[in-house]
């Protein structure tokens, strides 16, 4: 078998409400193995969509592009009823490179090596090969060119048969672009039988390295292979009008979207349970420590203010001077300890942590870090969802404890300030009706709400992100949904247990 990719009467169309946007029609093309192809075409013409199909990075929460005909990659059919995945045979360098921010460049490469079952010790060699013998400690310290080099090193970690690159020279000066192009060609030549497809607008940089130019002709809705000298000649004319007749009605489209969303929620929940045994132990521990320690003081202060004020004013605004003080204290203690402070601690915790967590995941999604994880063969749920769930489930009760205890201590101070009740009297009255059972209920409420907030944060963060605004939107939603979940769990369990 000498063909890398075989298109047979292949068609590709975006599903849009009320119609379809046809990108390709009746493509018949064969790309030989071992070729280094430059892939050009009009912006928005479907190059990236095709690349994502090849890389297996189709967004599961949106209607997938409709494909017709046949697309066979390395003998595996990517179309039809039984689509197969290329798995380790493909690696992609996506736009923004998708380097994991929180790891060092070297760790990024090591992770890809480990995911494909190779020794982590190969990382320095790969980086050196990519021209980065001594990379800086953090991804943030990398320049644009260095990022590309790390991305190349990481992509090569799994020694893929098919290497896909999306605009690897974008934003680089001609000299740097040339260097990267050369690097890609060297990487291509390193392994026998490797096929490389590079999406680019910078034909000049790749001219001397390319074996052929793959042209996506938007007006003709076709794909063809040209010699390396080929240049586009002002043919970026108006695309053909959308073929409305071929599309599905808007209602069907929106129903499909809705069902996909619901399925995605279900998938996140199933993942959260199925993926619960930690794979990335370090991530779990790091996240748990961070989620516990960061908001502890914040929630404790909030709890102290609530507990102290509630007690002080309950006693001070007592309509009968000195009357029913113990009863007031008992009521305040029970409400503050079992209901109010745990719930408000949940709110404060959610506001403090959920926003950060969903922003982080949203950014990772937006900058292709999640896609990069998937490309490496790492399940994003293992890397992001499981640590989040564990951290929330452990941190929420601990942080709630801080809030409840701080509230109690503040109540003790407020009691001595507002009435003559002694410390023992306060303890007797304040905790009179608080029992171990209440502690269990608090634990149940904080654990359950912690779990739900974690699932919501991950789900909202890992949804499709086309822009920074989408990230902001998901943070917003995470806070609102997280708070609503905390409220629902606390109100519901409180009502169920005590009413």
């Amino acid at each position, binding site marked *: 078998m000498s063909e890398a990719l075989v298109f047979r009467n292949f068609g590709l169309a975006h599903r849009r409400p009320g119609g379809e946007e046809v990108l390709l029609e009746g493509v018949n093309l064969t790309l030989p193995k071992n070729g280094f192809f430059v892939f050009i075409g009009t912006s928005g013409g479907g190059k990236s969509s095709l690349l994502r199909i090849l890389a297996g990075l189709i967004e599961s929460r949106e209607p997938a592009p409709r494909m017709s005909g046949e697309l066979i990659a390395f003998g595996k059919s990517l179309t039809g009823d039984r689509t197969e995945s290329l798995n380790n045979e493909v690696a992609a360098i996506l736009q923004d490179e998708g380097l994991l921010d929180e790891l060092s460049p070297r760790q990024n490469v090591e992770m890809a090596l480990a995911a494909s079952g190779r020794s982590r010790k190969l990382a320095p060699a790969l980086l050196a090969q990519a021209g980065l013998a001594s990379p800086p400690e953090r991804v943030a310290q990398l320049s644009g060119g260095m990022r590309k080099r790390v991305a190349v090193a990481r992509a090569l970690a799994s020694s893929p048969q098919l290497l896909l690159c999306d605009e690897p020279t974008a934003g680089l000066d001609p000299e740097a672009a040339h260097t990267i192009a050369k690097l890609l060609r060297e990487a291509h030549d390193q392994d026998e039988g490797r096929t490389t497809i590079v999406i680019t607008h910078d034909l000049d940089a790749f001219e001397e390295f390319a074996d052929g130019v793959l042209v996506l002709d938007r007006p003709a809705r076709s794909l063809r292979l040209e010699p390396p000298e080929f240049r586009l000649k002002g043919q970026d004319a108006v695309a053909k009008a959308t073929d409305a007749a071929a599309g599905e009605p808007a209602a069907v489209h929106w129903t499909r979207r809705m069902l996909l969303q619901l399925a995605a929620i279900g998938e996140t929940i199933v993942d959260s349970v199925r993926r619960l045994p930690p794979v990335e132990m370090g991530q779990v521990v790091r996240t748990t420590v961070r989620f516990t*320690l960061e908001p502890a003081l914040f929630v404790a202060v909030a709890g102290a203010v609530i507990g102290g004020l509630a007690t002080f004013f309950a006693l001070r605004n007592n309509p009968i001077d000195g009357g*029913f003080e113990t009863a007031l204290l008992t009521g305040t203690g029970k409400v503050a300890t079992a209901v109010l402070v745990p719930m408000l601690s949940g709110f404060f915790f959610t506001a403090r942590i959920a926003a950060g967590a969903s922003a982080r995941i949203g950014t990772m999604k937006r900058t292709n870090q999640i896609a990069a994880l998937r490309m490496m063969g790492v399940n994003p749920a293992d890397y992001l969802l499981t640590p989040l769930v564990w951290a929330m489930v452990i941190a929420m009760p601990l942080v709630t404890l801080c809030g409840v205890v701080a509230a109690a201590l503040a109540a003790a101070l407020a009691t001595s300030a507002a009435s003559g009740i002694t410390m023992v009297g306060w303890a007797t*009255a304040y*905790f009179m009706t608080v029992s171990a059972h209440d502690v269990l209920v608090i634990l149940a409420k904080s654990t359950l709400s912690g779990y739900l907030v974690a699932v919501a944060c991950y789900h909202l963060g890992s949804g499709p992100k086309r822009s920074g605004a989408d990230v902001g939107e998901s943070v917003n939603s995470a806070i609102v949904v997280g708070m609503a979940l905390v409220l629902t769990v606390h109100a519901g369990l409180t009502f169920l247990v005590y009413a």
Partner: protein
Amino acid sequence: MHRLRYFIGLLTLVGAIIAAIWIVRLLRSLDDRAGVPLSVEFRNARGLRAGTDVRYRGVTVGTVRSVAISGDGNKAVAQLLLEPIGAEHACVNSSFWVVTPRFGGLTGGATGLDTLVRDSYIAFYTPPGSESELSPGSLIAGRERPPLNAEPEALDDVEHGDLLMTLLVPENYELKPGSSVIFRGVPTGDVRSVSLAPSGTHVEVQLRIQREHRQTVTDKAKFWVGRPSVSGALLSGFTVTDLSALLTPYISYYGAPGEGVLVQDGYRAAAELSRPAFEISPVPGNAVQQDNTGKPAAPDDVVLVRITYAAVERDTFSADDQILRHGSGVLFLDRSGRSVVVTARSLVDASFTEDDAWGDPEIADEVTKVHRADGTVMRAHRVWVDPTGQDLAALVLEDVPPDLLGTPSDRLVFGGTVAGVPLQIRAAGPDGAELPIQPMASELALSEANLGGCIAADGKVFGVIGRKVGDVVAAIVSLEYLPADLRPQ
């Protein structure tokens, strides 16, 4: 920055865990704290809640730890924890009851009204003379209602000179401690206690007639229990007597003036079955003029007493100073019959003499005692000090014996001096007996042999020995500064 945030968070978390452990230990140890745990059984706990007070003489001395139903379901059991101070006063014959609002009918009045707006609480009463303290863990049968004999606690103390007597009545008619004793419609005393005679044939009512009315009780006086009675005939109309007793029964007595002899303490009399028929004597003619008869006999000399004053001055940075002083004072009865001792303020008020570099001295545990020549010792309260800085103070004695006599009022001069007569110092010695009279010297050194002693001239007292204002030099402080309320009639 991250490290600092984590460190602060770690501190908070560790602090919260330590505090949680502390709270749990505090809650666990509430039952193990110093004090005496007791269980009290009631038939009806009347809404008693855990956490409310246990009170003795209105002071909170313990806490109700829990209220539960007894194993057999017949009783409510309250677990109490008495503080050490409360445990001291809880004896084997103490009565415990739940204080809730109770309305004892028109005559019984309402009690426990504070618990209308407060939680019910447990009160207990220990009869005088009880000494066997309750052992921890005792199970006591509580009372369902307050014991009757707990009420005398609310009565005023018997004062020196009051007449204490026993009235035997055939039937109690709901008299109770505190009920009035009335003569000519004027309250002259009160009922101290009511008890059934051991033989069961009558009721013995202890009465106290106030000192100033003792001369109204003679062996000819007739006593009866005031309760409404209707007399008269259908045609002549009705007379209702003692109508006010409908709500509150009382004891009334009457004796015609001049009849019989005055009675002594411990006098016993039998009450009439009903209000006796008698003619009330009219107001005597000589009453229109000033009537000065009936005053108790007075001694004819100045009465001096020995005063011992002890106190502690609390110091912040050094050991507390013990203060102990001795001196003298002049005893007399003031216009309301109280036994008053007038003396130098520097003797009986440490705050007047002590200095503290850090502001006003903190004086605590003040005890003032007055000794008489016959060996009796009485506690005294400092009721007045001269507000203008004169070294003059007045004490009022408590638990005074009935035979205590004061300086006659004609021997006290309030204002002015006696001219042309040599001044003498009179003071009491350590045993309370009067020291030899000394002549007044111009350069007098203050000592316990003269401090608070009186300055007399011609047998009349017009001042005490104290300090000169703002100085420590001895000076004569005139009695003119004593307010009129504290002077004899």
